[in-house]
């Protein structure tokens, strides 16, 4: 073995990746094909903001939250 770097990998429990917030958003997916998990009403998703923000913009994701998420490298909305 040539490199062992304890900075890598998950800082917490990897299983958290099975229940990330924002999975109910629909970036890239239209509502009728979104593979959504239920989210509490009013909860802000990392990727898409709140449902109210999205509704106000007539889109499926709040653009401000999405722009922030993309800019900060949260890997969403691809």
């Amino acid at each position, binding site marked *: 073995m040539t490199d*062992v770097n304890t900075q890598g990998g998950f800082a917490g429990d990897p299983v958290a990746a*099975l229940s990330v917030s924002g999975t109910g958003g*629909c*970036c890239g997916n239209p509502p009728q*094909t979104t593979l959504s998990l239920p989210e509490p009403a009013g909860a802000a998703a*990392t990727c898409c903001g709140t449902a109210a923000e999205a509704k106000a913009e*007539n889109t499926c994701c709040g653009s401000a939250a*999405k722009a922030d998420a993309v800019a900060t490298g*949260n890997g969403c909305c691809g």
Partner: protein
Amino acid sequence: MTAPNLLDLDRALAGISGERMAATVTTLAGAPFTGRRVGTAGGAAARAWLADLLVEAGGTLATSAFPVPAIPDVYAAPTVRWSDGRTTYPLTFGRDVIVHLSSADLADGRDGPLGVAGVDEPTGRWLLVPAAMTLTDAYRNAGGALGLLVGRAVDGDGWHYTMLAGPAPGPLPVLTVETGLHDRLTAATGAGGASWSANAPIRRVDLQGTNLHARLRSARAGGPDLLLTAHYDGVGDHPRLRQPAAADNASGVAVICEAARLLSASLPEGIGLSVALLDGEEAGALGSAHHADQLAAAADQPLVINVDGAGHLNQTAAIEAGGPAHGLLALLDQAGRHTGLPLAAGPVASDNRRYAAAGLAAVGIGAGMAGYHSPADTADRVDAATMTAICRLVVATVWLANSSPAKLSSLIGDKR
């Protein structure tokens, strides 16, 4: 199950070339491929080029087509201008204004006074939709209107972003207007005498998508079988507006092709490996839905690793998992430790969700990107070091699949 030879893994990792991946991104983002929208000649040309790449990597190639209905197509750059009653201002397509996904087709321009939906008499006017009003409510206040103007923020580069998946067209032309301009239009309308002239050339077209598949290694009986995926389609160019789709997702394709090239030559016997370069993700992840159905019909259950957006890493790579992915997550964690790449649970709204919904263990990997779905998603903004880091993660994950995840910590020697 055998212990992985980590010296061999490290030799394989050392062979990863950021330069080669950057060249792949530059090619895929080039003008001949026209942004790679599903069903276009540019998409077909990109697919042909990628097919050659997979064959060169040692893959046995197959393709699979699927229908893609009602894709929005802006078939001409809209001509838009407004007047405050004294001066006429031409507006820039892509920056000031774009055609909203909900728009009805309007080939020829309409001129008329501006008004505010819910405030002014709608007949014969272009109506500004207030920020707090939904489009559905705006329609209720728009009888006889020429069309609707919806405000939306542009990105950090000043571009509107393009979506292909979204609501069905409504009864009126609808244009999306940059929010600052929307505010100025509202103020000018209040002052009186403001007018708007625009067309909204958008149609819906039924197209066909095509996935590319390549089998590189067959799994031994009962052995691990991995499927590496990335979508090669983009939202596509608009007339007079190039949208290269470099980070989203030429970068992911470059990572997967590089990983396939390396693993084909170096992967220990017994680990199954195939690649799917998917079409139609931007249209609602239709390519992966099609492929997931095919896998289910064949009772194939590979471990799926999807990469979407390897443009610019910001400290951690985002990981979203679905299906029975505990073992795959353990592999990914160990691969992250071995390669030194920090991982964090985060949304990756991409093809991985289709495979997970089909009951497969699936993870999506995403890093940051610039210029999401806009002309600013250019090859020069894709970071080769980011692609290298993600490719190292993918290669190590596949390699480590030959081990029992429970034993990997001691195998790697990590003390955490």
